[in-house]
């Protein structure tokens, strides 16, 4: 029991981070049909914001506030300079954002060097109940992720912005004839998606090693989560993230990380092939 | 046994019944037209026959074989050719290349010059198909059918977007294809002038079923058909 509990917590915290990353990807994919291959790098930049702020001596929590703002602003620039011109050419967005991802990665290498960096834990203690002990920051991380995921769901299902966003997803042309500025909706959705990636990166920075190559390790599982869960309803991300993240982490503990990665990818590919609309159903992407 | 037999075809989309126990027989060598208002299920019917869609229930037999649930390319190989509503030509290929792709065997490729003459495109066989005028695209697609040489051809609004003269020429071409090449033809149309020119049996489709069959004059003077097009109260007032 005491051995199982930390494993469950580890798996859950990985799933939650994966869902956060996938949620940002999915907002952009669902709204604009854009596959953002640079999403992993935006996640990475979120983590590097923490590295940079630690270097100048700003407190950790300031970083958590600043990272989504900085990465979101970067998202705004990317939308205006790049995505805006090609969002009607979905396959080209894959390539163009791939170019962007290479450039961003290298920019970080040039600024921070290729070696990995670390961010100190803001909270050092552990929660101890009897024989059970678990790092406090990981619990905070999980709680914040749950909160963020909840907030994103609330934004898209309960607010006026969400109503407009869902309308633009369902029938963009009709939404425009009702006076809704679809371009603006696309832009802000992209910003929200990137800001989420930045925040996720900032939150996990203390518990992973931060390096320029870290994006890919979240990008591909993130995409697989979306496709496995189904790109239609938002809840698909939760299911997809749980399947991909859960299987991966459990197998990594029980067998080996290599076998886990191979198994989870193969399972994901099989699900996507056999059930292209995903476990939760919904429309198939263009 | 009819050439093409459609038996109680049912197809639903999200609770909307596109075809509803649709039954129709088409005799070999005949020319038939299917008319009806928008959304009555005509294009769905063609998609069912050509295997693009599979029916929820019912049966399609062609030349005595049950072809229900066959994949589209096998149905095409058995001899059913189709012209789409929006001209479905290969825009990145030239006119001649379009015909070469459509003609599967050598003997058909030899008559490409003849087909070009028939569809009035002799002058520019090496033009990119995407650069043709709209009416010419429609003709090229008919030419592709000739090259494919199926025994049954399905035409979905072959005169959409054509001028009056082009429409009449198309009607003549279709009649000739039917008579001289012995191809069985089933055509969907809105344009009653075109239908009149075809002078063939007519089936009026409404809500996924055949409402009336008959010749042009009978259909034109039928009150139910008028009601379908003009609206109920008007037809009743006229009656």
């Amino acid at each position: 029991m005491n051995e199982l509990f930390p494993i469950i917590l580890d798996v859950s915290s990985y799933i939650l981070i994966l869902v956060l990353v996938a949620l940002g990807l999915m907002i952009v994919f669902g709204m604009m049909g854009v596959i953002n291959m640079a999403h992993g790098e935006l996640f990475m930049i979120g983590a590097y914001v923490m590295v940079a702020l630690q270097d100048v001596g700003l407190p950790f929590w300031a970083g958590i506030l600043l990272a989504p703002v900085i990465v979101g602003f970067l998202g705004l620039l990317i939308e205006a300079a790049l995505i805006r011109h090609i969002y009607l050419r979905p396959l080209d967005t894959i390539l163009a954002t791939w170019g962007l991802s290479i450039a961003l990665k290298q920019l970080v290498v040039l600024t921070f060097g290729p070696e990995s960096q670390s961010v100190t834990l803001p909270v050092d203690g552990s929660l101890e109940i009897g024989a059970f002990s678990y790092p406090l920051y990981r619990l905070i991380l999980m709680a914040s992720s749950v909160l963020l995921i909840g907030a994103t769901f609330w934004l898209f299902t309960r607010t006026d912005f969400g109503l407009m966003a869902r309308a633009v997803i369902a029938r963009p042309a009709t939404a425009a004839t009702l006076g809704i500025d679809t371009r603006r909706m696309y832009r802000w959705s992209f910003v929200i998606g990137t800001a989420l990636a930045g925040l996720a990166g900032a939150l996990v920075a203390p518990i992973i090693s931060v390096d320029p190559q870290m994006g890919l390790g979240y990008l591909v599982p993130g995409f697989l989560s979306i496709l496995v869960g189904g790109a239609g309803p938002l809840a698909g991300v939760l299911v997809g993230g749980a399947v991909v993240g859960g299987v991966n982490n459990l197998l990594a503990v029980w067998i080996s990380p290599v076998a886990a990665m191979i198994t989870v990818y193969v399972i994901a590919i099989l699900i996507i092939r056999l059930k292209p609309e995903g476990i939760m159903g919904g429309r198939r992407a263009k | 046994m009819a050439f093409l037999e459609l038996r109680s075809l049912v197809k639903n989309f999200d609770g909307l019944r596109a075809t509803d126990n649709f039954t129709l027989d088409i005799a070999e060598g005949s020319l038939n037209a299917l008319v009806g208002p928008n959304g009555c299920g005509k294009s769905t019917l063609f998609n069912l026959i050509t295997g693009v869609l599979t029916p929820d229930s019912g049966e399609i037999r062609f030349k005595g074989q049950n072809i229900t649930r066959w994949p589209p390319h096998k149905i095409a190989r058995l001899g059913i050719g189709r012209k789409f509503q929006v001209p479905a030509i290969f825009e990145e290929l030239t006119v001649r290349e379009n015909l070469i792709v459509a003609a599967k065997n050598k003997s058909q490729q030899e008559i490409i010059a003849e087909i070009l003459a028939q569809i009035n495109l002799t002058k520019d066989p090496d033009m990119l198909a995407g650069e043709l005028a709209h009416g010419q695209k429609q003709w090229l697609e008919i030419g592709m059918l000739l090259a494919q040489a199926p025994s049954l051809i399905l035409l979905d609004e072959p005169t959409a977007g054509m001028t009056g003269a082009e429409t009449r020429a198309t009607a003549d071409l279709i009649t000739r294809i039917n008579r001289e090449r012995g191809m069985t033809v089933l055509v969907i149309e809105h344009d009653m002038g075109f239908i009149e020119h075809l002078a063939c049996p007519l089936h009026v489709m409404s809500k996924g079923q055949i409402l009336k069959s008959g010749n042009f004059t009978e259909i034109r003077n039928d009150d139910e058909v008028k009601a379908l097009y003009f609206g109920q109260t008007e037809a009743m007032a006229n009656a």
Partner: protein
Amino acid sequence: MRNNLVALLIFAALAASPLVIGSYWTGQLTAYLVYGLLAISLSLVWGYGGILCFGQAMFFGIGGYIMAVLTKGMILPDLTSSYIGLLAAMAGAALFALALGYFLFAGRGISGAYLAIITLAITLVLERLMNNWYALGGYNGLLNVPPIKLTFFGASFELWDRLPTFYAVLGVVTVVYFGTSLLLKSAYGLKLTASRTHPDRLSSLGYSVLSIRLSVFALSAAIAGLAGAIFVTLDGFASPTLIGFTLSTEVLIWVAIGGKEMLLAAFLGAILTRTAESWLSEIFGNYWILILGLTFMVSVVLLPKGLLATPLEWLTKGKGKRSG
């Protein structure tokens, strides 16, 4: 006609280049030619077949490993013929592509963005697999792969020296390039264009779109496998990087920058990008990758047909005319 003329001139220039560029660069250029072959294979499947494959290096790697395993005599010690190795590499890659293609395209097949993500995931899986397949050298790969041994009527010699190797590789690339161009100009090329732009229409004419897709996928894999097989003989070793993600995305960049819808542009895209990399990475150092990423991005946005394809098209076809 003009198309072939321009290609002939370019291949003639390549053939003459060792006279000018010296021994070191001849060796480099040999490797670039092999990358060019890989680029041709991707252009065929992506630009002509409409299948965006994010994992083209898997076929390259499979070809490379098959060649290495056979010519090192790891399976049959008596059967180490280079010819058999090359053939087996092509056949092995093609068979793998057929199986994978059937899985991907049959029935309600996968296309577009989904295909890109899935091929990317598959290539990651394969790379990880090779890293841990210790019988095949694992992370370190297979060392001491022998060079290609050519046998003519009983006489045989090994391609150790740079110049003969260069010309042998150039010969293969030339044959593949012109063979593929010829094929694309035939009725098969028409069908390929038709299946890419309007698959439903093609199946309504009685063609099986699945078999067309499978055939182009397998053919492209065979060419990539051939390239991989030649490559391992040049360096003398096969490693998991051949099969993996990095090379897959690099070849994508070369082909996109060159021009995916034109074999010649894709081929030159690979050679020129690699050449530029050798020169510019010395001048710009680490900034080179940044420049490459940005160039790739800008060329996708502004010149979706490719940086090289636009001027080449103008050269080969003249203004506004189509050579057919």
